[in-house]
């Protein structure tokens, strides 16, 4: 098994004694270092919360369009969104741009002065330059080396507020934060760090697939395969989102059950949660798309293909109708026989 080789290889990787010594020295130095409150580089000060909200409101359709595609990823802060999406608003970020253009004009060091200061500084245990300066003496540009997480959270809040999302920060470290942003039935995983802010749609259809997953697991367990359910998610080119569900195959299950226990059910959801299509395919055959059909149509098709038309399972799932209301749908699966292969047809009927 290749996983054994992977374990064997990674088992050979360990921190060297030299690295461990450096780590201990760095931690001890950090513990004993005076924790002067550093003056922050005003990277975000040039854009007030109000200005950011106004600018982001203009750009919101762009963001929402991208979020509709299930993922929003940026390479910068709210300011960069604003500057890119609404150039006419650049006067709001003018103070920041002025700083970038002439740092010394604001009483701060320019890059060559910073470099010279660092070159003259004594080295710490790791060979990095250290500066023993009080907060007021700290060159203005240096705090960039120590990210301002409160500012980062403000950036994220400016963005989520403008998008109408409610932000909950669950973990915050010195250079990144993660959390959750919620609006209606949509939940976005939030991650923000030095490189930008990322919102990933995690459960707009979560209720749908969690409920369907539970129903499939129950069905699967009743047939003795352990009841485990797996799912996968995809983003399609048109921004719709696919949720796939399938149950695990159990080698101990009777052969006649295999076609059912490996059933994959695919639901394609529109941005508002509307079910666009549902499909099922045995043995995780990807790309198999069956048209949405009624229960009777699916049963008739199963019979026409040589199956007995017996219903193999049904699952209840929910889809957000766009206004936050969850509309229940039934998935029906029927067995059929095509060329000796057992397959499963599915239909979805709004309850």
């Amino acid at each position, binding site marked *: 098994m290749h996983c054994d080789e*992977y374990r064997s290889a990674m088992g*050979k990787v360990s921190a060297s004694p030299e*690295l461990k010594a450096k780590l*201990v020295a760095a931690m001890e130095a*950090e*513990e004993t270092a005076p924790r002067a409150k550093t003056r922050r580089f005003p990277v975000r000060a040039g854009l007030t919360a109000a200005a950011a909200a106004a600018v982001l409101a203009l750009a919101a359709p762009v963001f929402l369009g991208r979020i509709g595609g299930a993922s929003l990823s940026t390479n910068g802060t709210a300011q960069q969104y604003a500057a890119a999406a609404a150039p006419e608003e650049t006067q709001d970020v003018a103070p920041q741009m002025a700083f970038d253009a002439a740092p010394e004009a604001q009483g701060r060091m320019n890059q060559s002065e910073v470099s010279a200061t660092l070159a003259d500084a004594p080295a710490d245990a790791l060979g990095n330059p250290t500066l023993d300066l009080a907060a007021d003496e700290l060159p203005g540009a240096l705090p960039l080396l120590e990210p301002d997480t409160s500012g980062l959270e403000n950036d994220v809040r400016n963005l989520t507020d403008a998008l109408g999302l409610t932000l909950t920060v669950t*973990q915050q470290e010195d250079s990144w934060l*993660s959390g959750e942003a919620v609006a209606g039935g949509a939940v976005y995983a939030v991650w923000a760090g030095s*490189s930008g802010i990322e919102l990933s749609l995690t459960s707009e259809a979560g209720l749908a697939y969690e409920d369907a997953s539970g129903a499939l697991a129950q069905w699967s367990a009743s047939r003795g395969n352990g009841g485990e359910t797996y799912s996968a998610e995809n983003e399609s080119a048109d921004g719709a989102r696919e949720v796939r569900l399938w149950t695990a195959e159990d080698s101990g299950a009777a052969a006649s059950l295999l076609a059912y226990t490996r059933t994959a059910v695919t639901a394609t959801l529109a941005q508002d949660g509307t079910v666009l299509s549902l499909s099922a395919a045995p043995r995780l055959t990807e790309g198999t798309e069956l048209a949405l059909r009624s229960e009777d149509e699916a049963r008739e098709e199963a019979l026409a293909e040589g199956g007995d038309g017996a219903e193999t399972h049904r699952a209840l799932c929910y889809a957000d109708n766009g206004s936050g209301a969850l509309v229940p749908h039934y998935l029906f699966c029927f067995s059929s026989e095509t060329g000796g292969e057992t397959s499963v047809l599915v239909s979805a009927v709004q309850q």
Partner: protein
Amino acid sequence: MSACMLHDPAEIVEAYADMVYRTAYGLVKNPADAEDVAQEVFLSLVRTKPSFESAEHQKAWLLRTTVNKCKDHFKSAWQRRTQGLDESFSVPFTPEESAVLDAVRALPDKYRTVIYLYYIEGYSAKEIAQLLGIPQNTVLSQMARARKLLKTALKGDFDDAL
């Protein structure tokens, strides 16, 4: 506070440096970057002084922070614009091990992370989901896709388990 929890830097490093470095190495692909990430993780521990309920909590915090530091590393503009030097690791891997490592390194970052946490750190899908703050089903689907990619790259099953 658990009696097993470590507070002394030397004890913490001795207990967790291998895990943190190995995790970073498994995710960022080269020893120099892994050392940088390891240093960031331990300095973060000192700076933020998180409150731990147990040794397991402390370990999970270090792992999650390592993964997030690596994520930060992947996303940094510098990292995206530059190619790291092709640094060879001093440990002699067998040709088979090198082939598997190369295949795992070629996986997308998120797949590599779940594969590492599952096979090397021995976490269950549920634990990985809690550790990474993502749904358990997402972990399972990422693992399934990673195994599929590895099976193609290695021309053989990575693991029998589904």
